[in-house]
């Protein structure tokens, strides 16, 4: 499967819609052990991404990711601005000049994003962060594409991502705002791990729509 630039743009637009649809859920999760602004800030950021992508005529998939990343970096702030924004820009730089994506490019995209997020935030697996969703996804996807095609590999990796996201429920937070809660952070899903899963899930849904 090869994803064209136009399809890739739609995938990104669909992610914006998925974030918007889940804004209340993310807000509620964040309020349990954080300050409750994750949903609203993500919604604001992805709405702007949608506007700017719709206004752009670029056929360069890397450029689209850079546009999206810069919106978050320049206008959103919070912890999510640098984490998601920096990650998208890094992925965009890695894929710059590409007008279509094969399964290896998609690995490159998420691996670059993960690397940026880990180096900036300093989180490892088990710290109750978005890394708990993204790293199992990248590891599993990297293994799966050796034998499987893009959609099947993505589906397999998404299962690992979901497991990773759900695992944050039983972890005591070690990083970020909720880390100060120690024991009390237990029993709650991490909101960053959840928004990362929503993004991956939406990506997968878009791929399956393309296949049909």
């Amino acid at each position: 499967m090869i994803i064209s630039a136009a399809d890739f743009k739609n995938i990104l637009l669909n992610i914006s819609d998925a974030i918007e649809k889940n804004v209340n859920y993310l807000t509620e999760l964040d309020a349990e052990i954080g300050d409750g602004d994750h949903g609203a800030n993500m919604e604001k950021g992805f709405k702007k991404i949608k506007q700017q992508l719709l206004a752009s005529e670029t056929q360069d998939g890397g450029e689209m990711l850079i546009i999206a990343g810069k919106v978050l970096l320049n206008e959103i702030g919070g912890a999510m601005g640098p984490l998601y924004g920096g990650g998208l820009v890094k992925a965009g730089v890695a894929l710059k000049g590409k007008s279509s994506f094969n399964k290896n490019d998609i690995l490159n995209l998420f691996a670059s994003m993960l690397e940026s997020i880990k180096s900036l935030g300093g989180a490892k697996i088990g710290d109750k962060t978005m890394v708990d969703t993204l790293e199992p996804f990248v590891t599993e996807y990297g293994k799966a594409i050796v034998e499987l095609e893009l959609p099947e590999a993505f589906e397999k990796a998404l299962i690992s991502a979901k497991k990773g996201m759900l695992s944050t429920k039983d972890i005591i937070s070690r990083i970020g705002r909720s880390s100060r809660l120690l024991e009390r952070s237990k029993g709650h899903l991490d909101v960053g791990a959840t928004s990362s899963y929503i993004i991956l899930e939406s990506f997968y849904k878009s791929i399956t729509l393309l296949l049909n």
Partner: protein
Amino acid sequence: MKKFINDPTVVVDEALEGYVAAYPDSVEVLSDARVLVRKKDPSFAKVGVITGGGSGHKPAFLGYVGEGLCDAAAIGEIFAAPPAVWIYKGIKKINMGKGVICLYGNFSGDIMNFRMAKTLAEMEGIEVDEVIAKDDIASSPKDTMENRRAVAGEVIMWKVGGAAAAEGMNIKQIKDVASRAVFNTRSFGVGSFPCIIPATGKPSFKLEDDEIEIGIGHHGEPGIKKEKLKSADEITGVLLDAILEDLPFKNNDTVSVLINGLGATPFQELYIVNRKVTEILQKYKINKLITYVGEYFTSLEMAGFSITLTKVDDEIARLILAKADSPMFKQFDLNK
């Protein structure tokens, strides 16, 4: 939600517009970044002082842009750090060739954005350093105190760092003295009613009518435990004992005292707290340098208060007593 707003998505912008309209001779906003700066340049080239953070903490952060305090404040959304690019533009604006010091609180979003801004400014040859407040003893045990979040202790950091810059100290000297002030500052707070973030419209946490949250964070983050409401004297005793033990503060130490209301607690109650604080400090023969009672770092309409103690040496005492003049924080030079 019952708030006097127009549109939840522009609350921060509209409040900032109103603030600048109230104090047009003192402050202005950069044209291409939500950064508040002093309108009058200092009379000599000094180290620039920038702070910043999420909104909803009035008078922080914008109220501390003024003489003897900060030269700029980057203003994020409610409870969310400002973007790195804004901070960088603020640093560029207030740099007078002597470098810029960033004085902010220990929150991961703020750290990431301030550090990215620092990198951007350093690429242009601007010397940038930072001091990060981490005064809230409820947020992490003492053996991991580097993880503690900042609360009202930031005000003392701005006062000391801002006065040091106004005296003409270089960036390293300012970092040293402001770090020492941070290291000797301890805060502990209690919440009795949640705040509502306009964009979500919902209370940030739940408490029963007779419950309080010991160790509440400045964004409504849960603290150490929920307890039944007690008398002001009892709660003050619990908070202050923990503060005194944590540093620890000892006989004959001199301290500055900050009793901070979180937004909806009447000043009357803050004075009742201060009455008890004074009594306990006298009991332990701890001297008071100065007492601030009021709203210095709020959390929207949250009810509750925090107590902040800073152990001072001669230099920190001089800087705390120095002149400060911003629209929200005015103090004569008390060293004279």
